[in-house]
Protein backbone atom coordinates (compact mmCIF):
# COMPACT_ATOMS: atom_id res chain seq x y z
CA UNK A 1 0.00 0.00 0.00
CA UNK A 2 1.10 3.52 -0.61
CA UNK A 3 2.64 5.10 2.48
CA UNK A 4 -0.28 6.36 4.46
CA UNK A 5 0.13 7.62 7.88
CA UNK A 6 -2.88 6.75 9.99
CA UNK A 7 -1.83 9.15 12.68
CA UNK A 8 -1.26 12.15 10.41
CA UNK A 9 -3.80 14.86 9.99
CA UNK A 10 -4.84 14.38 6.39
CA UNK A 11 -5.51 11.57 4.01
CA UNK A 12 -3.15 11.52 1.04
CA UNK A 13 -5.90 10.87 -1.47
CA UNK A 14 -3.77 11.28 -4.57
CA UNK A 15 -1.45 8.49 -3.45
CA UNK A 16 -4.14 6.23 -2.12
CA UNK A 17 -6.15 6.58 -5.28
CA UNK A 18 -3.42 4.73 -7.15
CA UNK A 19 -4.46 1.63 -5.25
CA UNK A 20 -7.81 1.66 -7.05
CA UNK A 21 -7.39 0.65 -10.69
CA UNK A 22 -10.86 1.70 -11.75
CA UNK A 23 -10.30 5.25 -10.59
CA UNK A 24 -7.72 5.85 -13.30
CA UNK A 25 -10.21 5.05 -16.08
CA UNK A 26 -11.53 7.55 -18.54
CA UNK A 27 -15.27 7.75 -19.20
CA UNK A 28 -16.55 9.57 -22.26
CA UNK A 29 -13.21 11.26 -22.65
CA UNK A 30 -13.05 12.45 -19.05
CA UNK A 31 -11.20 10.99 -16.08
CA UNK A 32 -13.77 9.12 -14.02
CA UNK A 33 -15.29 10.91 -11.05
CA UNK A 34 -16.74 8.09 -9.04
CA UNK A 35 -19.35 9.40 -6.64
CA UNK A 36 -21.42 6.30 -6.06
CA UNK A 37 -19.66 4.52 -3.24
CA UNK A 38 -22.83 4.37 -1.19
CA UNK A 39 -24.14 1.94 -3.82
CA UNK A 40 -20.89 0.02 -4.11
CA UNK A 41 -17.30 1.04 -3.54
CA UNK A 42 -14.28 0.35 -5.68
CA UNK A 43 -11.62 -2.12 -4.51
CA UNK A 44 -7.90 -1.56 -4.11
CA UNK A 45 -5.33 -3.90 -5.64
CA UNK A 46 -4.54 -5.10 -2.13
CA UNK A 47 -7.97 -6.69 -1.95
CA UNK A 48 -7.90 -8.01 -5.51
CA UNK A 49 -4.42 -9.42 -5.00
CA UNK A 50 -5.36 -11.15 -1.76
CA UNK A 51 -8.26 -12.89 -3.46
CA UNK A 52 -6.17 -13.85 -6.45
CA UNK A 53 -3.40 -15.15 -4.24
CA UNK A 54 -5.86 -17.27 -2.31
CA UNK A 55 -7.40 -18.61 -5.50
CA UNK A 56 -4.04 -19.49 -6.98
CA UNK A 57 -2.43 -21.07 -3.93
CA UNK A 58 -4.94 -22.20 -1.34
CA UNK A 59 -8.42 -22.76 -2.65
CA UNK A 60 -10.29 -25.78 -1.39
CA UNK A 61 -13.62 -26.16 0.29
CA UNK A 62 -13.47 -25.21 3.96
CA UNK A 63 -14.24 -27.07 7.18
CA UNK A 64 -14.19 -30.53 5.73
CA UNK A 65 -10.77 -31.28 4.34
CA UNK A 66 -7.93 -32.96 6.19
CA UNK A 67 -5.32 -32.19 3.56
CA UNK A 68 -2.99 -29.21 3.67
CA UNK A 69 -4.58 -26.68 1.37
CA UNK A 70 -8.04 -27.38 2.76
CA UNK A 71 -6.72 -26.82 6.28
CA UNK A 72 -5.08 -23.62 5.20
CA UNK A 73 -8.23 -22.47 3.39
CA UNK A 74 -10.23 -23.12 6.54
CA UNK A 75 -7.69 -21.34 8.70
CA UNK A 76 -7.72 -18.28 6.47
CA UNK A 77 -11.49 -18.24 6.22
CA UNK A 78 -11.91 -18.39 10.00
CA UNK A 79 -9.12 -15.86 10.45
CA UNK A 80 -11.04 -13.48 8.18
CA UNK A 81 -14.07 -13.94 10.39
CA UNK A 82 -12.11 -12.94 13.47
CA UNK A 83 -10.44 -10.08 11.67
CA UNK A 84 -13.79 -8.67 10.56
CA UNK A 85 -15.22 -9.19 14.02
CA UNK A 86 -12.38 -7.23 15.60
CA UNK A 87 -12.91 -4.45 13.06
CA UNK A 88 -16.35 -3.79 14.54
CA UNK A 89 -15.31 -4.55 18.10
CA UNK A 90 -17.12 -7.88 18.44
CA UNK A 91 -16.42 -9.22 21.93
CA UNK A 92 -16.41 -12.80 20.69
CA UNK A 93 -15.62 -12.70 16.99
CA UNK A 94 -15.22 -16.41 16.32
CA UNK A 95 -18.82 -17.01 17.39
CA UNK A 96 -20.56 -13.74 16.74
CA UNK A 97 -19.71 -13.08 13.10
CA UNK A 98 -21.88 -14.74 10.47
CA UNK A 99 -21.00 -14.57 6.79
CA UNK A 100 -23.89 -14.26 4.38
CA UNK A 101 -24.36 -13.00 0.82
CA UNK A 102 -24.96 -9.34 1.61
CA UNK A 103 -26.36 -7.09 4.32
CA UNK A 104 -29.85 -7.82 3.04
CA UNK A 105 -29.52 -11.53 3.67
CA UNK A 106 -28.26 -10.78 7.17
CA UNK A 107 -31.34 -8.76 8.00
CA UNK A 108 -33.58 -11.48 6.58
CA UNK A 109 -31.70 -13.98 8.66
CA UNK A 110 -32.58 -12.04 11.79
CA UNK A 111 -36.21 -11.65 10.71
CA UNK A 112 -36.53 -15.35 10.01
CA UNK A 113 -34.69 -16.76 12.99
CA UNK A 114 -35.33 -14.26 15.75
CA UNK A 115 -38.59 -13.07 14.31
CA UNK A 116 -40.11 -16.47 13.81
CA UNK A 117 -39.26 -17.54 17.36
CA UNK A 118 -39.76 -14.32 19.31
CA UNK A 119 -42.53 -12.50 17.48
CA UNK A 120 -46.15 -13.51 17.64
CA UNK A 121 -49.44 -12.22 16.28
CA UNK A 122 -50.15 -8.78 17.63
CA UNK A 123 -46.52 -7.98 18.44
CA UNK A 124 -45.02 -4.68 17.39
CA UNK A 125 -41.92 -3.94 15.36
CA UNK A 126 -40.66 -0.37 15.16
CA UNK A 127 -38.79 0.88 12.10
CA UNK A 128 -37.72 4.34 10.98
CA UNK A 129 -38.98 6.27 8.01
CA UNK A 130 -35.45 6.41 6.64
CA UNK A 131 -34.81 2.65 6.49
CA UNK A 132 -33.49 1.00 3.37
CA UNK A 133 -35.85 -1.62 1.93
CA UNK A 134 -33.47 -4.23 3.32
CA UNK A 135 -34.59 -3.30 6.83
CA UNK A 136 -38.26 -2.91 5.89
CA UNK A 137 -39.36 -5.66 3.55
CA UNK A 138 -38.16 -8.59 5.71
CA UNK A 139 -40.32 -7.23 8.53
CA UNK A 140 -43.24 -6.64 6.21
CA UNK A 141 -42.99 -10.22 5.00
CA UNK A 142 -42.96 -11.44 8.57
CA UNK A 143 -45.75 -9.05 9.50
CA UNK A 144 -47.91 -10.44 6.73
CA UNK A 145 -47.37 -14.01 7.94
CA UNK A 146 -47.73 -13.35 11.62
CA UNK A 147 -49.94 -10.29 11.85
CA UNK A 148 -47.43 -7.99 13.44
CA UNK A 149 -47.88 -4.24 13.80
CA UNK A 150 -45.31 -1.98 12.26
CA UNK A 151 -44.72 1.43 13.79
CA UNK A 152 -42.54 4.10 12.29
CA UNK A 153 -40.18 6.58 13.89
CA UNK A 154 -40.76 9.73 11.83
CA UNK A 155 -38.16 12.15 10.53
CA UNK A 156 -38.18 15.91 10.65
CA UNK A 157 -37.61 18.18 7.67
CA UNK A 158 -33.89 18.21 8.27
CA UNK A 159 -33.73 14.45 8.01
CA UNK A 160 -33.24 13.70 11.69
CA UNK A 161 -35.25 11.06 13.47
CA UNK A 162 -37.89 12.60 15.71
CA UNK A 163 -37.14 10.93 19.00
CA UNK A 164 -39.23 12.99 21.38
CA UNK A 165 -41.87 10.29 21.62
CA UNK A 166 -39.47 7.38 21.40
CA UNK A 167 -40.55 5.92 24.75
CA UNK A 168 -44.16 5.77 23.62
CA UNK A 169 -43.23 4.46 20.17
CA UNK A 170 -41.21 1.56 21.50
CA UNK A 171 -43.57 0.90 24.38
CA UNK A 172 -44.63 -2.72 24.08
CA UNK A 173 -42.47 -3.27 21.01
CA UNK A 174 -40.33 -6.38 20.68
CA UNK A 175 -37.87 -5.14 18.11
CA UNK A 176 -36.55 -1.86 16.76
CA UNK A 177 -34.92 -1.82 13.32
CA UNK A 178 -32.81 1.24 12.64
CA UNK A 179 -30.08 2.23 10.27
CA UNK A 180 -26.87 3.65 11.72
CA UNK A 181 -26.66 5.96 8.75
CA UNK A 182 -29.20 6.80 6.09
CA UNK A 183 -28.12 5.95 2.56
CA UNK A 184 -30.19 8.87 1.25
CA UNK A 185 -29.93 11.62 3.84
CA UNK A 186 -26.59 10.71 5.31
CA UNK A 187 -28.12 11.14 8.77
CA UNK A 188 -26.17 9.46 11.56
CA UNK A 189 -28.61 8.18 14.12
CA UNK A 190 -28.01 8.18 17.88
CA UNK A 191 -27.80 4.41 18.14
CA UNK A 192 -26.82 4.26 21.77
CA UNK A 193 -29.75 6.37 22.85
CA UNK A 194 -32.21 4.43 20.74
CA UNK A 195 -30.79 1.16 22.01
CA UNK A 196 -31.05 2.26 25.63
CA UNK A 197 -34.67 3.29 25.26
CA UNK A 198 -35.51 0.15 23.27
CA UNK A 199 -33.83 -2.11 25.79
CA UNK A 200 -35.62 -0.40 28.65
CA UNK A 201 -38.86 -1.28 26.86
CA UNK A 202 -37.70 -4.87 26.41
CA UNK A 203 -37.06 -4.62 22.67
CA UNK A 204 -33.94 -5.70 20.80
CA UNK A 205 -32.27 -3.41 18.29
CA UNK A 206 -31.46 -4.57 14.77
CA UNK A 207 -28.95 -2.12 13.33
CA UNK A 208 -28.27 -1.67 9.65
CA UNK A 209 -24.59 -0.78 9.38
CA UNK A 210 -24.35 -1.01 5.58
CA UNK A 211 -23.50 2.68 5.27
CA UNK A 212 -21.80 3.35 8.59
CA UNK A 213 -19.30 0.50 8.91
CA UNK A 214 -17.45 1.52 5.71
CA UNK A 215 -17.08 5.14 6.80
CA UNK A 216 -16.96 5.42 10.60
CA UNK A 217 -15.08 3.70 13.39
CA UNK A 218 -17.50 1.04 14.66
CA UNK A 219 -17.68 -0.61 18.03
CA UNK A 220 -20.70 -2.79 18.55
CA UNK A 221 -20.42 -2.55 22.30
CA UNK A 222 -20.61 1.22 22.35
CA UNK A 223 -23.40 1.21 19.77
CA UNK A 224 -25.31 -0.87 22.26
CA UNK A 225 -27.29 -2.70 19.60
CA UNK A 226 -28.03 -6.41 19.48
CA UNK A 227 -27.23 -7.21 15.88
CA UNK A 228 -25.49 -5.27 13.12
CA UNK A 229 -25.54 -6.06 9.40
CA UNK A 230 -23.19 -4.77 6.72
CA UNK A 231 -21.86 -5.59 3.23
CA UNK A 232 -18.29 -6.02 2.04
CA UNK A 233 -18.87 -4.41 -1.35
CA UNK A 234 -19.52 -1.02 0.22
CA UNK A 235 -16.30 -1.11 2.24
CA UNK A 236 -13.67 -1.62 -0.49
CA UNK A 237 -14.31 -5.36 -0.36
CA UNK A 238 -15.77 -7.81 -2.86
CA UNK A 239 -19.37 -8.50 -3.84
CA UNK A 240 -20.95 -11.72 -2.67
CA UNK A 241 -20.40 -11.39 1.06
CA UNK A 242 -22.21 -9.66 3.89
CA UNK A 243 -21.67 -9.80 7.60
CA UNK A 244 -23.96 -10.17 10.54
CA UNK A 245 -22.66 -9.47 13.98
CA UNK A 246 -24.93 -10.60 16.79
CA UNK A 247 -24.52 -10.92 20.54
CA UNK A 248 -23.39 -14.41 21.41
CA UNK A 249 -26.31 -15.10 23.79
CA UNK A 250 -28.79 -13.83 21.25
CA UNK A 251 -27.43 -15.88 18.35
CA UNK A 252 -26.91 -18.97 20.49
CA UNK A 253 -30.60 -19.09 21.15
CA UNK A 254 -31.76 -18.97 17.55
CA UNK A 255 -32.84 -21.78 15.26
CA UNK A 256 -31.04 -22.25 11.93
CA UNK A 257 -31.78 -20.04 8.95
CA UNK A 258 -31.24 -22.12 5.81
CA UNK A 259 -30.68 -25.88 5.82
CA UNK A 260 -27.86 -27.85 4.26
CA UNK A 261 -24.24 -28.75 4.74
CA UNK A 262 -22.09 -26.97 7.33
CA UNK A 263 -24.99 -25.90 9.53
CA UNK A 264 -25.66 -29.34 10.99
CA UNK A 265 -24.13 -31.61 13.58
CA UNK A 266 -26.10 -34.61 12.43
CA UNK A 267 -28.76 -35.50 9.90
CA UNK A 268 -30.96 -38.53 10.24
CA UNK A 269 -33.90 -39.47 8.10
CA UNK A 270 -36.17 -38.26 10.83
CA UNK A 271 -34.51 -34.94 11.51
CA UNK A 272 -31.32 -33.02 12.09
CA UNK A 273 -29.27 -31.52 14.89
CA UNK A 274 -28.02 -28.00 14.20
CA UNK A 275 -24.41 -26.96 14.59
CA UNK A 276 -23.08 -24.33 16.97
CA UNK A 277 -22.94 -20.64 16.03
CA UNK A 278 -21.82 -19.11 13.73
CA UNK A 279 -21.92 -22.11 11.35
CA UNK A 280 -25.53 -22.84 12.22
CA UNK A 281 -26.40 -19.88 10.01
CA UNK A 282 -24.05 -20.71 7.17
CA UNK A 283 -25.65 -23.47 5.11
CA UNK A 284 -23.64 -24.68 2.15
CA UNK A 285 -20.28 -23.62 0.84
CA UNK A 286 -19.66 -20.08 2.09
CA UNK A 287 -18.24 -17.21 0.02
CA UNK A 288 -14.66 -18.24 0.74
CA UNK A 289 -12.61 -16.13 -1.64
CA UNK A 290 -14.89 -13.26 -0.73
CA UNK A 291 -14.17 -13.69 2.98
CA UNK A 292 -10.46 -13.52 2.19
CA UNK A 293 -11.13 -10.36 0.20
CA UNK A 294 -13.16 -8.83 2.99
CA UNK A 295 -10.35 -9.59 5.43
CA UNK A 296 -7.96 -7.74 3.13
CA UNK A 297 -10.43 -4.84 2.84
CA UNK A 298 -10.60 -4.56 6.59
CA UNK A 299 -6.80 -4.60 6.76
CA UNK A 300 -6.70 -1.85 4.16
CA UNK A 301 -9.18 0.36 6.00
CA UNK A 302 -7.51 -0.27 9.33
CA UNK A 303 -4.15 0.52 7.79
CA UNK A 304 -5.42 3.95 6.84
CA UNK A 305 -7.42 4.42 10.00
CA UNK A 306 -11.15 4.82 10.31
CA UNK A 307 -10.78 7.98 12.39
CA UNK A 308 -8.81 9.55 9.59
CA UNK A 309 -11.29 8.40 6.97
CA UNK A 310 -14.14 9.86 8.95
CA UNK A 311 -12.34 13.17 9.40
CA UNK A 312 -11.60 13.29 5.69
CA UNK A 313 -15.20 12.63 4.77
CA UNK A 314 -16.49 15.29 7.16
CA UNK A 315 -14.14 17.83 5.60
CA UNK A 316 -15.10 16.80 2.08
CA UNK A 317 -18.83 16.86 2.83
CA UNK A 318 -18.56 20.28 4.43
CA UNK A 319 -16.72 21.56 1.38
CA UNK A 320 -19.22 20.01 -1.03
CA UNK A 321 -22.31 21.38 0.69
CA UNK A 322 -20.85 24.86 0.84
CA UNK A 323 -19.60 24.82 -2.74
CA UNK A 324 -22.87 23.47 -4.16
CA UNK A 325 -24.92 26.06 -2.31
CA UNK A 326 -22.59 28.82 -3.28
CA UNK A 327 -22.71 27.94 -6.96
CA UNK A 328 -26.34 27.01 -7.35
CA UNK A 329 -28.16 28.83 -4.55
CA UNK A 330 -31.84 27.95 -4.59
CA UNK A 331 -31.43 25.81 -7.67
CA UNK A 332 -30.14 23.02 -5.50
CA UNK A 333 -31.76 21.38 -2.53
CA UNK A 334 -29.63 18.99 -0.50
CA UNK A 335 -31.67 16.62 1.64
CA UNK A 336 -30.70 15.77 5.19
CA UNK A 337 -28.79 17.39 8.06
CA UNK A 338 -27.05 20.67 7.39
CA UNK A 339 -24.01 19.94 9.49
CA UNK A 340 -21.49 17.44 8.09
CA UNK A 341 -20.68 16.24 11.60
CA UNK A 342 -24.22 14.86 11.87
CA UNK A 343 -24.03 12.99 8.60
CA UNK A 344 -21.98 10.75 6.38
CA UNK A 345 -20.65 11.69 2.96
CA UNK A 346 -23.88 11.05 1.11
CA UNK A 347 -25.47 14.00 -0.67
CA UNK A 348 -28.92 13.46 -2.13
CA UNK A 349 -30.15 16.48 -3.96
CA UNK A 350 -32.78 17.97 -6.20
CA UNK A 351 -31.51 20.26 -8.92
CA UNK A 352 -33.95 22.73 -10.46
CA UNK A 353 -36.70 20.65 -12.03
CA UNK A 354 -34.39 18.27 -13.81
CA UNK A 355 -35.27 14.67 -13.12
CA UNK A 356 -32.50 12.73 -11.33
CA UNK A 357 -32.31 10.25 -14.21
CA UNK A 358 -31.59 13.07 -16.59
CA UNK A 359 -29.08 14.65 -14.22
CA UNK A 360 -27.20 11.41 -13.90
CA UNK A 361 -27.29 10.87 -17.65
CA UNK A 362 -25.77 14.25 -18.40
CA UNK A 363 -23.22 14.00 -15.59
CA UNK A 364 -22.10 10.71 -17.10
CA UNK A 365 -21.08 12.60 -20.21
CA UNK A 366 -18.53 14.33 -18.01
CA UNK A 367 -17.34 11.11 -16.41
CA UNK A 368 -19.25 11.84 -13.21
CA UNK A 369 -20.96 8.80 -11.71
CA UNK A 370 -23.87 9.59 -9.39
CA UNK A 371 -26.87 7.46 -8.62
CA UNK A 372 -30.41 8.49 -9.54
CA UNK A 373 -33.45 6.81 -8.13
CA UNK A 374 -35.26 5.90 -4.96
CA UNK A 375 -32.15 4.34 -3.43
CA UNK A 376 -34.25 1.48 -2.13
CA UNK A 377 -35.94 3.79 0.31
CA UNK A 378 -39.37 4.40 -1.15
CA UNK A 379 -41.14 5.18 2.12
CA UNK A 380 -38.51 7.88 2.68
CA UNK A 381 -38.97 9.18 -0.88
CA UNK A 382 -42.68 9.55 -0.20
CA UNK A 383 -41.91 11.37 3.03
CA UNK A 384 -39.60 13.70 1.11
CA UNK A 385 -42.28 14.16 -1.52
CA UNK A 386 -40.15 12.99 -4.44
CA UNK A 387 -39.97 9.93 -6.66
CA UNK A 388 -36.24 9.97 -6.82
CA UNK A 389 -33.15 11.96 -5.94
CA UNK A 390 -29.72 12.27 -7.46
CA UNK A 391 -27.10 11.14 -4.98
CA UNK A 392 -23.39 11.81 -4.87
CA UNK A 393 -21.56 9.79 -2.23
CA UNK A 394 -17.97 9.94 -1.09
CA UNK A 395 -15.39 7.45 0.06
CA UNK A 396 -11.80 7.66 1.23
CA UNK A 397 -10.61 8.01 -2.38
CA UNK A 398 -12.61 11.14 -3.20
CA UNK A 399 -11.37 14.67 -2.77
CA UNK A 400 -12.27 18.26 -3.54
CA UNK A 401 -11.42 17.91 -7.20
CA UNK A 402 -14.25 15.38 -7.50
CA UNK A 403 -16.64 17.90 -6.00
CA UNK A 404 -15.40 20.58 -8.38
CA UNK A 405 -15.94 18.31 -11.35
CA UNK A 406 -19.44 17.49 -10.12
CA UNK A 407 -20.24 21.19 -9.91
CA UNK A 408 -19.02 21.91 -13.43
CA UNK A 409 -21.00 18.99 -14.80
CA UNK A 410 -24.13 20.05 -12.92
CA UNK A 411 -23.77 23.46 -14.43
CA UNK A 412 -23.72 21.90 -17.88
CA UNK A 413 -26.80 19.88 -16.97
CA UNK A 414 -28.64 23.03 -16.11
CA UNK A 415 -27.63 24.53 -19.42
CA UNK A 416 -28.72 21.44 -21.36
CA UNK A 417 -32.22 21.41 -19.98
CA UNK A 418 -32.41 25.14 -20.45
Amino acid at each position, binding site marked *: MAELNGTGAELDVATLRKDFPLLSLEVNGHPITYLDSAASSQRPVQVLDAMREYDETTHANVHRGVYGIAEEATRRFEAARINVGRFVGAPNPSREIVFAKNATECLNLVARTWGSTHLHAGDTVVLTEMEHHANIVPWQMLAAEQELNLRWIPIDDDGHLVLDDLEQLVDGAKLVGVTCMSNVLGTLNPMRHIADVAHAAGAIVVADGAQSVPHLPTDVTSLGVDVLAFSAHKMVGPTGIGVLWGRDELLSDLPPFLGGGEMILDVRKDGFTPNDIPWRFEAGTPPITEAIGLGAAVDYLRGIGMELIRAHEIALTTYAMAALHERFGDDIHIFGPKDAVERGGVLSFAFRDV*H*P*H*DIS*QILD*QYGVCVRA*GHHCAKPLMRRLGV*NATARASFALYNDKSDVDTLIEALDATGAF*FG
Partner: protein
Amino acid sequence: MPGLEDLYREIILDHYRSPRNRGELESPPAQRVEGFNPLCGDEIVVTLEVTGGVVSDIKIAGSGCSISQSSASLMSAAVKGRPVTEVRELIRTFKGMMSIHGSTLPSADDGSTPDDEASEPEPIDIEALGELAALQGVVKFPVRIKCATLSWNTLAQGLDESEPA
Protein backbone atom coordinates in the same frame (compact mmCIF):
# COMPACT_ATOMS: atom_id res chain seq x y z
CA MET B 1 -20.02 5.62 -26.73
CA PRO B 2 -23.30 7.02 -28.00
CA GLY B 3 -23.75 10.72 -27.44
CA LEU B 4 -26.48 12.66 -25.70
CA GLU B 5 -28.00 13.74 -29.00
CA ASP B 6 -28.96 10.09 -29.62
CA LEU B 7 -31.02 10.15 -26.47
CA TYR B 8 -32.36 13.64 -26.15
CA ARG B 9 -33.77 14.35 -29.62
CA GLU B 10 -35.51 17.69 -29.95
CA ILE B 11 -38.93 16.08 -30.26
CA ILE B 12 -38.36 14.21 -27.02
CA LEU B 13 -37.45 17.36 -25.15
CA ASP B 14 -40.50 19.00 -26.65
CA HIS B 15 -42.89 16.29 -25.43
CA TYR B 16 -41.15 16.37 -22.05
CA ARG B 17 -41.64 20.10 -21.70
CA SER B 18 -45.17 20.13 -23.11
CA PRO B 19 -46.69 16.75 -22.47
CA ARG B 20 -49.82 15.88 -24.47
CA ASN B 21 -52.94 14.33 -22.94
CA ARG B 22 -51.90 15.07 -19.37
CA GLY B 23 -54.28 14.18 -16.56
CA GLU B 24 -56.65 11.44 -15.52
CA LEU B 25 -59.98 10.39 -17.01
CA GLU B 26 -62.71 9.66 -14.57
CA SER B 27 -62.55 6.04 -13.57
CA PRO B 28 -64.85 4.27 -13.92
CA PRO B 29 -65.89 4.43 -16.65
CA ALA B 30 -62.23 4.75 -17.74
CA GLN B 31 -59.78 1.95 -17.10
CA ARG B 32 -57.07 3.08 -14.67
CA VAL B 33 -53.67 1.37 -14.56
CA GLU B 34 -50.53 2.22 -12.62
CA GLY B 35 -47.01 1.40 -13.67
CA PHE B 36 -43.79 1.55 -11.66
CA ASN B 37 -40.22 1.67 -12.68
CA PRO B 38 -38.69 -0.26 -9.81
CA LEU B 39 -35.24 1.08 -10.69
CA CYS B 40 -35.95 4.72 -10.10
CA GLY B 41 -39.33 5.03 -8.48
CA ASP B 42 -41.02 6.63 -11.47
CA GLU B 43 -44.74 6.13 -11.54
CA ILE B 44 -47.17 6.47 -14.36
CA VAL B 45 -50.93 6.41 -14.36
CA VAL B 46 -52.66 5.61 -17.62
CA THR B 47 -56.41 6.09 -17.83
CA LEU B 48 -58.08 5.00 -21.03
CA GLU B 49 -61.46 4.47 -22.52
CA VAL B 50 -62.12 1.79 -25.07
CA THR B 51 -65.33 2.23 -27.03
CA GLY B 52 -66.30 -0.06 -29.86
CA GLY B 53 -62.84 -1.55 -30.15
CA VAL B 54 -61.24 1.85 -30.34
CA VAL B 55 -59.07 3.69 -27.78
CA SER B 56 -61.40 6.61 -27.70
CA ASP B 57 -59.60 8.56 -25.01
CA ILE B 58 -56.41 8.32 -22.99
CA LYS B 59 -54.71 10.45 -20.37
CA ILE B 60 -51.36 10.22 -18.64
CA ALA B 61 -50.50 11.19 -15.09
CA GLY B 62 -47.63 10.48 -12.74
CA SER B 63 -44.11 11.73 -12.85
CA GLY B 64 -40.79 10.64 -14.22
CA CYS B 65 -37.76 11.52 -16.22
CA SER B 66 -37.68 13.14 -19.64
CA ILE B 67 -37.62 9.79 -21.39
CA SER B 68 -40.52 8.20 -19.55
CA GLN B 69 -42.60 11.35 -19.74
CA SER B 70 -41.98 12.05 -23.39
CA SER B 71 -42.49 8.42 -24.31
CA ALA B 72 -45.85 8.47 -22.54
CA SER B 73 -46.82 11.71 -24.21
CA LEU B 74 -45.80 10.47 -27.66
CA MET B 75 -47.66 7.24 -26.98
CA SER B 76 -50.85 8.98 -25.97
CA ALA B 77 -50.78 11.04 -29.15
CA ALA B 78 -50.10 7.96 -31.25
CA VAL B 79 -52.81 5.69 -29.89
CA LYS B 80 -55.70 8.05 -29.27
CA GLY B 81 -58.50 7.26 -31.64
CA ARG B 82 -56.84 4.10 -32.98
CA PRO B 83 -58.45 0.63 -32.95
CA VAL B 84 -57.25 -1.63 -30.16
CA THR B 85 -55.87 -4.14 -32.64
CA GLU B 86 -53.68 -1.49 -34.21
CA VAL B 87 -52.62 -0.24 -30.82
CA ARG B 88 -51.58 -3.73 -29.80
CA GLU B 89 -49.56 -3.97 -32.99
CA LEU B 90 -47.97 -0.61 -32.26
CA ILE B 91 -47.02 -1.71 -28.76
CA ARG B 92 -45.38 -4.79 -30.25
CA THR B 93 -43.47 -2.72 -32.77
CA PHE B 94 -42.39 -0.16 -30.22
CA LYS B 95 -41.15 -2.80 -27.80
CA GLY B 96 -39.36 -4.47 -30.69
CA MET B 97 -37.51 -1.24 -31.34
CA MET B 98 -36.65 -1.10 -27.65
CA SER B 99 -35.07 -4.56 -27.62
CA ILE B 100 -31.33 -4.65 -27.77
CA HIS B 101 -30.84 -6.66 -30.94
CA GLY B 102 -28.28 -5.34 -33.31
CA SER B 103 -27.24 -2.56 -31.01
CA THR B 104 -24.54 -2.50 -28.38
CA LEU B 105 -24.23 -6.21 -27.83
CA PRO B 106 -21.09 -7.76 -29.26
CA SER B 107 -22.77 -11.03 -30.15
CA ALA B 108 -25.90 -12.93 -29.36
CA ASP B 109 -23.91 -15.74 -27.80
CA ASP B 110 -22.28 -13.37 -25.40
CA GLY B 111 -25.68 -13.03 -23.87
CA SER B 112 -27.91 -10.05 -23.74
CA THR B 113 -30.19 -8.15 -21.43
CA PRO B 114 -33.57 -9.38 -20.32
CA ASP B 115 -35.48 -7.47 -22.92
CA ASP B 116 -33.63 -9.42 -25.53
CA GLU B 117 -35.37 -12.71 -25.51
CA ALA B 118 -36.33 -14.06 -28.89
CA SER B 119 -33.33 -15.69 -30.49
CA GLU B 120 -34.54 -14.67 -33.95
CA PRO B 121 -35.73 -11.08 -33.73
CA GLU B 122 -38.47 -10.15 -36.10
CA PRO B 123 -37.72 -7.25 -38.38
CA ILE B 124 -39.28 -4.03 -37.11
CA ASP B 125 -41.15 -1.56 -39.26
CA ILE B 126 -39.69 1.66 -37.85
CA GLU B 127 -41.63 3.66 -40.46
CA ALA B 128 -44.87 2.60 -38.87
CA LEU B 129 -43.79 4.32 -35.67
CA GLY B 130 -43.80 7.84 -37.05
CA GLU B 131 -42.69 10.36 -34.42
CA LEU B 132 -42.12 7.54 -31.97
CA ALA B 133 -39.02 6.63 -33.96
CA ALA B 134 -37.35 9.54 -32.17
CA LEU B 135 -37.05 7.26 -29.17
CA GLN B 136 -34.90 4.83 -31.16
CA GLY B 137 -31.69 6.18 -29.64
CA VAL B 138 -32.78 5.09 -26.16
CA VAL B 139 -31.80 1.55 -27.00
CA LYS B 140 -28.17 2.62 -26.84
CA PHE B 141 -28.69 3.46 -23.15
CA PRO B 142 -30.01 0.17 -21.82
CA VAL B 143 -30.93 1.48 -18.39
CA ARG B 144 -33.24 4.04 -19.97
CA ILE B 145 -35.13 1.42 -21.97
CA LYS B 146 -37.27 0.75 -18.93
CA CYS B 147 -38.07 4.48 -18.82
CA ALA B 148 -39.20 4.44 -22.43
CA THR B 149 -41.27 1.27 -22.14
CA LEU B 150 -42.92 2.03 -18.80
CA SER B 151 -45.98 3.73 -20.26
CA TRP B 152 -46.28 1.13 -23.01
CA ASN B 153 -46.28 -1.76 -20.60
CA THR B 154 -48.82 0.06 -18.50
CA LEU B 155 -51.01 0.65 -21.55
CA ALA B 156 -50.74 -3.01 -22.55
CA GLN B 157 -51.90 -4.00 -19.10
CA GLY B 158 -54.76 -1.58 -19.35
CA LEU B 159 -55.88 -3.04 -22.67
CA ASP B 160 -55.70 -6.56 -21.29
CA GLU B 161 -57.84 -5.55 -18.37
CA SER B 162 -60.36 -3.61 -20.39
CA GLU B 163 -60.73 -6.20 -23.08
CA PRO B 164 -58.77 -9.43 -22.66
CA ALA B 165 -56.99 -10.40 -25.90
